[in-house]
């Protein structure tokens, strides 16, 4: 087993609040591993422990083959950590930020430029702009360049796409898949479910517990639910009525439509006829295939 990150029965509490509850996880070398969960699920706590900023209450943590409790000094040279808020010096320029982080790790920008080139390329046009004056997407790219400048083995990205526009987000994921090719193991967390499919494997985390770990495709295949998509003119009325309809286990909004989890007894045609009779217009109910978000809702409901 060639795991770069290994977590065994990890628990952590802040006072009486449980942040992480008996978590076990393994990430293999060169993997792009996603940690998916809502805000407050414990993602940032997990990152702080992996980055050796926090000592866990219980459990074992190995990063790059080293024990996080005893060898934290060695680990620190092997990880690139990018915290949730882009940790840049706002009053320093783009180049000054990059230079500073390079010298902090005792490396020169030149020797590792090939690694950051795809990320930093767009920033080269304004080397003297202050970091505080950059757009969200540019800040994100600069922060990633700073985290990469010492050629880390493991890249820890804590919600790197939060607060960044959609175009920059998709560019960012493209950059991550490029970085993977250079052999860097990447752990990325996000609260956007749609980003999960970009990862090789994901762990779904909620309330400090890991719900499931698998490839996105396998996870969705395992969903194994009777799922329908529903729409009508009056969406709120539709939601209320469907929730009272027999055979419906769960009904929730999903983008512009509703998703209905139903028993086998559920007959879409009969239900839509009934709803039309009740006064709803343009009622449409049809079978659909679930995705990560449906799975997440199922897993949290089963808890």
């Amino acid at each position, binding site marked *: 087993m060639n795991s770069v990150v290994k977590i065994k029965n990890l628990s952590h509490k802040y006072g009486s609040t449980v942040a992480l509850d008996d978590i076990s996880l393994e990430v293999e070398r060169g993997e792009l591993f996603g940690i998916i969960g809502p805000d407050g699920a414990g993602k940032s706590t997990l990152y*702080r422990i992996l*980055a*050796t*900023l*926090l*000592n866990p209450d219980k459990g074992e943590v190995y990063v790059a083959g080293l024990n996080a409790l005893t060898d934290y*000094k060695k680990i*620190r*040279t092997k*990880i690139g*950590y990018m*915290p*949730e*808020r*882009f*940790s*840049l*010096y*706002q*009053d*320093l320029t783009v180049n*000054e930020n990059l*230079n*500073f*982080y390079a*010298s*902090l*790790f*005792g490396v020169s920008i030149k020797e590792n430029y090939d690694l950051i080139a795809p990320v930093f390329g767009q920033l080269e046009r304004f080397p003297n702009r202050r970091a505080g004056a950059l757009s969200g997407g540019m800040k994100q790219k600069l922060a990633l360049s*700073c985290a990469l400048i010492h050629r880390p083995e493991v890249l820890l990205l804590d919600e790197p796409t939060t607060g960044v526009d959609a175009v920059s987000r998709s560019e960012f994921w493209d950059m991550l898949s490029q970085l993977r090719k250079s052999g860097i193991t990447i752990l990325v967390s996000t609260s956007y479910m749609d980003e999960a499919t970009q990862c090789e494997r994901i762990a779904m985390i909620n309330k400090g517990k890991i719900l499931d770990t698998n490839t996105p495709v396998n996870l969705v295949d395992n969903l194994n639910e009777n799922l329908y998509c529903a729409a009508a003119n009056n969406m709120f009325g539709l939601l209320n009525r469907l929730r009272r309809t027999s055979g419906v286990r769960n009904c929730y909004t999903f983008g512009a439509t509703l998703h209905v989890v139903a028993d086998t007894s559920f007959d879409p045609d009969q239900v839509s006829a009934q709803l039309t009779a009740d006064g709803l217009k343009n009622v449409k109910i049809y079978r659909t295939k679930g995705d990560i978000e449906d799975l997440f809702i199922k897993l949290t409901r089963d808890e």
Partner: protein
Amino acid sequence: MGIFGSLIKKEAIHIVRDKRTMFITLLMPLFLLILFGFAISTEVKNIKIVTIVDKHTDMSRDIEQKLAVNEYFTYLGQAAPGDVERLLRTGEIDAALFIRTDGDKLDTQIIVDASNTTSAKTSTGYIQGVLSGSSQSQPPILTQTLYNPQMKSAYNFVPGIMGMIFILICAIMTSVSIVREKENGTMDLLLVSPTKPGTIILGKLIPYFILSCIILAIMLLIAYTVLELPLSASVFNVIILSLIYITLSLSIGLLVSTIVNTQLNALIVSAVMFMVPIIMFSGMIFPIDNMPRILQCITTIIPARWYISAMRKLMIQQLPFGYIIRETVILGSMTIVLLGLAITKFKNSR
């Protein structure tokens, strides 16, 4: 450039680019020194006074003349006894002097507006001085004021202002700059880098130490030129003790930064927790000897008290180093304890 060099360069950029803060930091000491040195003065001048004389004699005229030529008084002439109360109430006069001739003896009575006790006490003293000089029956009292013969209040305030400025600027600036890094999350990145915590701390403290030295130079320059403090060899001791005190203030800033988590809290803790005790308990304004026993005990833990006391001895009394050994030892030990505590706490934050 090594890690240490980059840390210092980065901090220097923070200081220089934050123009407003730098401006305030460098101008505040200047402003306070000049303000306390000139404008805020406990000397009482221009006491408006009238005399009420029942019979004109040589002796009463002599007194009137002395009041008229004395620079501390504005002599407004004679008034009728019935007008005195009205004049005091309207504030047209600060004091009135009744002179009654009884044979060849003079009876005098001073009536003074004591709504401001400080000026009332001082003006009474002045008037008594004028009277004692003219009375033949009493010999004049000889007073010699040592160290500050002109009783300049600037002399008294310079050590106090220095004691306050260093704590304020060093403690506020270091604590805010460290806590800012905590808030931005950049401190996390410094900590996960292979850089040693000790290096991070030194990289933080040294730029502010240099800035404080510049402030010290400005203040000493003003004190010895504009405020005309007597310059002597003791200025070297002043500098040495000030450097110890600056280090102490920086340690306090570092300690504050390990306790609080937001810049606002750092500012409040540094400003309120240090400024008030310094003004009240350092002897800067209120003499410590006049305080109740308990408060006197409290003053012993305030570093500014020892610094100001030593500065008075050095700058005004011009005593040699031997007289400030106690203050130096106390300040030195406080520095070592606080710095040690701050570094341990900082390292434990991992």
